[in-house]
């Protein structure tokens, strides 16, 4: 395990010097980390054996919340935006989740899809509020009262995202070790036994769902201020599919997996987009199939091959 931590520290240090060593990567990585938050949320539900093809709606909800706050209230501090978006998305997640976590398997997937499609359609149709399919422009936020240039803000945002990633990863590891974290995995392995132990599967899942929504909202808010534009397409169901893909590619065995998957995908995308613009989805689809067939623990599984394999680390194992 010590080697693993050293590896993560080295990777983190490498990321931290990116704005100086490879400035072109800075924006790519900010978006990768933003999507990584959402993918971590999706991975958390996957650990419980639930697949959500609707999580892009929380990503979009976070992004639109940030946009609304800047445009409507005039408050434009980065930290206020991130915290408020995360909280608002958590509330939306709790409300939606209270209804959805009663369902399992395909019904859970389909209901998430349905809710997210309603959300997507409302975003694109309510022109007066959401700007319709044009979306909303998000001005550059201030940071702790300081007004920065776009370039300066981007550097600050990158380090904020990086720091948040480290914090979330740390908290995530603790969460997975906690009784609640184990209960989430237990829903996948044996829900009945969990209920016999006196643990309410409904409340465990509701908490997990709320956390996963909040994480996606945080990611969406980071993306919104980084790109400076929010669009209804953020919530489309194919985006949700991509989030699941990212989580599975990285591996759902640990918190680091989805981030690894997200950073890997965004970098490969940036490189590949010039070579094969129209074939990007094809490459992604083929990669996804290869990972599912040959690498059920994802890229993260490659890193932790020596570490012990917990039962819930593998996607779809222990069908209950």
């Amino acid at each position: 395990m010590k080697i693993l931590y050293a590896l993560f520290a080295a990777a983190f240090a490498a990321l931290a010097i990116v704005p100086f060593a490879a400035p072109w990567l800075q924006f790519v990585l900010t978006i990768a980390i933003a999507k990584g938050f959402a993918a971590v949320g999706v991975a958390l539900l996957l650990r419980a054996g639930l697949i959500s093809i609707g999580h892009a709606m929380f990503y979009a909800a976070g992004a639109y919340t940030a946009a609304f706050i800047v445009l409507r209230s005039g408050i434009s501090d980065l930290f206020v935006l991130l915290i408020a978006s995360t909280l608002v998305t958590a509330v939306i997640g709790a409300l939606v989740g209270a209804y959805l976590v009663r369902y399992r398997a395909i019904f859970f997937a389909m209901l998430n899809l349905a809710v997210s499609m309603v959300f997507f359609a409302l975003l694109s149709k309510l022109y007066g509020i959401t700007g319709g399919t044009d979306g909303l422009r998000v001005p550059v936020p201030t940071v702790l009262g300081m007004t920065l240039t776009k370039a300066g803000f981007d550097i600050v945002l990158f380090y904020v995202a990086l720091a948040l990633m480290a914090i979330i990863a740390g908290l995530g590891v603790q969460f997975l070790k906690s009784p609640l974290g184990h209960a989430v995995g237990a829903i996948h392995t044996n829900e009945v036994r969990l209920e016999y132990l006196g643990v309410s599967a409904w409340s465990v899942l509701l908490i997990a769902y709320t956390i996963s929504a909040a994480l996606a909202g945080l990611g969406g808010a980071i993306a919104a201020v980084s790109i400076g534009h929010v669009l209804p397409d953020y919530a489309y169901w194919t985006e949700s599919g991509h989030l699941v893909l990212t989580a599975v590619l990285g591996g759902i065995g640990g918190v680091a997996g989805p981030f690894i998957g997200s950073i890997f995908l965004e970098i490969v995308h940036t490189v590949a987009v010039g070579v094969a613009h129209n074939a990007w989805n094809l490459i992604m689809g083929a990669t996804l199939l290869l990972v599912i067939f040959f690498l059920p623990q994802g890229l993260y599984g490659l890193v932790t091959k020596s570490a012990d394999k917990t039962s819930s680390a593998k996607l779809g194992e222990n069908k209950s």
Partner: protein
Amino acid sequence: MLDMALPLIMDALANAALIFFVAVGLTLVFSVQRILNVAHGSFYSIGAYIAASMGLWLISAGLNPWLSFPALLLSAALVAMVLGPLVERTLIRWTYGRHEAIQILVTFGLFLILEDLQRLVFGVRSIYQDTPMALLGVSEIGGIFYLNYQLLLIVLALAVLFGMRFLIKHTRLGRLLVAVVADREVSLAMGINTDRAFVLAFTLGVFLAALGGALATPTTGVAPGLGAETMVLAFAVAAIGGLGQIEGAAVASIIVAGAKVLAVYYAPAFDTVAPFLVMLAVLLVRPNGLFGTATTRKI
């Protein structure tokens, strides 16, 4: 009042017919294979592309335009014969009995691959080819004009509905499928070639999706993103009707198309939301859909 309502009803029924073809394919594959095929919408759009290209070719080659009708059917059959067995044998078969998350992801991977293949083969422009609709023209009933093509769609949808019923209730293949759905292992032990049943059911599902796409081209044309749009609509219809229920899919198609038409008429902003609101409302009350049979839950 009726004069105003009749064209709307006609519109709704024609829409319902188009949705039904896709949804019934999805629901068939679900009931036999127990797989929610996310790539199902891609078969619809591939059928649409092939049909539109074939139609355009027929016109440019100067052949009899009435040939465009069999061309619609032929293109759907072509898609099914090529893609059905290929996809089932290579990808879908591997996912039988595995976790839903894996099944959904594998078919999502397939969806991504098929989407880009369509872009590469057919380009990114939309194709519009309405020869069949123009040929049939309009007919006047009681002072109101109807597109004959819409009537044809409704008739075909009914034919598919009753054809499916006949297939399942009264043919050997149908009986075999019912047996496989009920218990795969026992069917296997009784000497039923379940592999063959699976290939046939999946190919039939692909055919129905491609047929829906082919029949839709004269009315709506085909453009990139069509597959993804159709997919979610078919999901909604199949879920409302109850996954695996053929008659349920028919009723749900009418409900969804009706909701869409009403939305277009009264609140145009909500036409795309309507199917999903209906789906949420129905599943809230009946989690297994209108006609779905309750399976015992494990809690």
